[in-house]
């Protein structure tokens, strides 16, 4: 199979998976979900590390280091912020569960 088609296949299937997994989210969780998804795209850090580690051009290294700092803020900050939000929901987990099931 043509290599470009392999990539296209992965892309198209991921689109459907991405929509399918969140299709039943309640509006209560929209904000944490958005924040969590935001953290996941912080994985661009991996790309920033790869390009910075493969160059010896000074200007490129400087730009690469900036990209690494920005991407780590996105990734780490995103996951910590999402966890902080979700922590508040889980504290009240027990009464919420009973109520939801009764209703």
């Amino acid at each position, binding site marked *: 199979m043509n290599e470009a088609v392999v990539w296209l296949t992965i892309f198209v299937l991921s689109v459907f998976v991405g929509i399918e997994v*969140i299709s039943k989210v309640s509006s209560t969780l929209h904000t944490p979900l958005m924040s969590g998804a935001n953290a996941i795209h912080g994985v661009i850090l991996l790309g920033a590390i790869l390009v910075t*580690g493969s160059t010896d051009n000074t200007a*490129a290294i400087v730009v690469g280091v900036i990209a690494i700092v920005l*991407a780590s*803020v996105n990734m*780490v900050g*995103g996951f910590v912020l999402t*966890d902080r939000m979700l922590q508040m*929901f889980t504290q009240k987990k027990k009464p919420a569960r009973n109520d939801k099931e009764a209703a």
Partner: protein
Amino acid sequence: MHSIPTWAQVVYLACAVCFILALKGLSGPKTARNGNLLGAVGAVVAVLVPFIIKNPATGEHLHHVPLIVAAIVVGTIGGVYGAQKVQMTQMPQMVALFNGVGGGAAALVALLELHEHVAAGDHENWFVWAATAFTIFVGAVSFAGSCVTFAKLQELMTSRPVSFPGLSVLFGGSLIAAVVLSVMLVRDPAMNYGIIIGVLGLLFGLLLVLPVGGADVPIVISLLNAFTGLTVAAGGYVLANTVLLVGGTLVGASGTFLTILMANAMGRSVTNILFGALKGGSTLGGGEASDRPVKSLQPNDAAIMLGYADRVIIVPGYGLAVAQAQHSLRELVDILGERGTQVDYAIHPVAGRMPGHMNVLLAEAQVPYDQLKEMDEINGDFKDADVVLVVGANDVVNPAAKTTPGAPIYGMPILNADEAKNIIFMKRSMRPGFAGIENELLFDEKTQLLFGDAKDSMSKLLNAVKAL
């Protein structure tokens, strides 16, 4: 081109599965926290791989490892500090900021990759160059757009739509110019094209968000989040990295879907939000305070109304949390509950600044989750309510959404507070809500206003109820 070892590819696959399960977990209340942790594990493992394997592009181990590690440490400290320090009321703009820096990072990565390919004189597939141009442009759009949303929500600039003559020409022009330059880059790859595309992306991002009104900004954050996801996916294709491709695509797809869900909850369409102002119609109303007569009351009177009611519904809004009055409110509700009054909180889907924000803010004040009723669940109860107490909310109870076809919020589902027997509005001033339009409910004959800072009024009200 050297290939990535099989074990590393399997690790990347496992990380991609972590991201899928993370999103799945985040969409259910019981699994959300574990889902987020799983996503974090996947991301951290994925980032460790390039330190171990030889770089597929060069066949060598990573250069400048100490520098890279130092940069990660700096970013991590910054991210953790920001995430821990931010007030829960300011969380939407923090998400916007994190999203923006991610988009910026993706654009820089694509620029560097272009630089490397051009320097090495590589003859890549045209699709790789197109994906590079896309990453640079959309990453820059996301960065600039997120900075503007941050400034709007943080009130560093006006939250009203900013527009000027020629904006739509400039907007369309920058997009067309970027497409033309992308075609030129594909035909004849050169660094200069990449840089200009990046600058055009910054301009486009700025022009995209400036005309959006404050109340619609959260939807734009979600949309830009999806943009960054697609950028990362395109970057993954350029770097031939599966985990970036899958992770980015997942966020792009689910983010787009989530944007539509949010817009539906607000009764708005995404195209209207983005292009409404460009077409000439402002997404906001006049926003001037009216001098029509209203009825006001004192905390003591309000306390008597609440104290002798059988059924009370609280409508909390963003203003409640800004004034930090949610703790006094919870105490008030507890006292009323002990005296036999049935009290519930009516949570509009977009109460706060984005869907679900109010639940987070009240959860922070230890309000029991079972007292929080969603709109569909409680809307039928308003007609039986003796008193509705509106604290720091405005647009979500504005009957104009049902009655005035020209209003910017027309069509948005609202809480039926106007059906209650009495309405007490706690307000700081007669200033309109975030959507910038006047609220007819304030002038209703069943409505009385309790003026003052929400925290101050709430503690006076609390003391008055205790004294009954």
